């Protein structure tokens, strides 16, 4: 249960983090806005590793012990960001949200099978419902946005 609550809280924090990152991007530019995040987080994490007495993790022998592939997570994150920026230029908000989530969740199912050996076909139905819900919500939002723009235009012409 604890993990479920933390995962939902992670989603909450994700939204706030996105809003703050947007502000950082506005003030510093996209790349430098992201860099401030990574530098700060690196320093904080470094300090906490030593505070919690796990400094041994930084020994070269231990670092080499870890399969190289596992360090590639952040590079995947950067590649994802590039694809997202390119893709969102032409696709609308709804399409980009749904397609990205589709890619994310299907990859997770595949990788859960690879790393944990777990696969439940019913999860595919769950993912379909999530995507349907998100698409529906975005459709309503787009409609509301268009209505708001039309109302504003009407008020201005009056």
């Amino acid at each position, binding site marked *: 249960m604890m993990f479920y609550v933390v995962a939902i809280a*992670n*989603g909450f924090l994700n939204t706030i983090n996105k809003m703050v990152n947007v*502000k*950082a991007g506005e*003030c510093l530019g996209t790349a430098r806005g992201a860099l401030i995040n990574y530098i700060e987080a690196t320093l904080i*994490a470094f300090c906490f590793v030593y505070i919690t007495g796990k400094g041994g993790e930084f020994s070269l022998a231990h670092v080499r012990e870890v399969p190289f592939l596992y360090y590639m997570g952040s590079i995947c994150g950067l590649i994802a960001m590039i694809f997202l920026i390119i*893709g969102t230029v032409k696709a609308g908000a709804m399409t980009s949200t749904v397609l990205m989530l589709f890619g994310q969740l299907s990859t997770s*199912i595949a990788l859960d099978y690879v790393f944990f050996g777990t696969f439940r076909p019913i*999860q595919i139905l769950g993912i379909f419902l999530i995507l349907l819900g998100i698409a529906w919500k975005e459709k309503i939002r787009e409609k509301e946005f268009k209505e708001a723009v039309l109302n504003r235009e009407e008020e201005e012409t009056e």
Partner: protein
Amino acid sequence: MVYFIFLILAGIFQGFMVSLNGQLGNYYSLFGICFFVHIIAAVLLFLYITLKEKKKITFRGVPKYVYTVGFMGVIMVATSSWCTLHIGATAMLSLSVIGQMISSAIVDHRGWFNATERPFHLKQLPCYLLVLAGVLVVVYG
């Protein structure tokens, strides 16, 4: 069409990111994972800004709350890796989606962070319930 492929690829790479970061948890403490995840990205971005953009790196002139992004980044990577290791990436991502939807609705409703105020309407509720049903199927199905 090619843009749709880019977006699916973005999602695929994000899925890889969450899963691989979770796997680091078998070797490192939560803060150790955060360190490696962020330092690799920081080095790559630093190289990009200095070599490609050829811009001077400065972090001045931002509102003070922007400096909390690092703390949030650490908490987010630590919690997502911790949860992925215990409940799997699919459940972690699905639950995170519902958290993101609720918090986005609150931010939009209140107009926080200078966002355009978009009040929550009851007609949106079925969409949230549908997502919740999907998440329950993924987690408990």
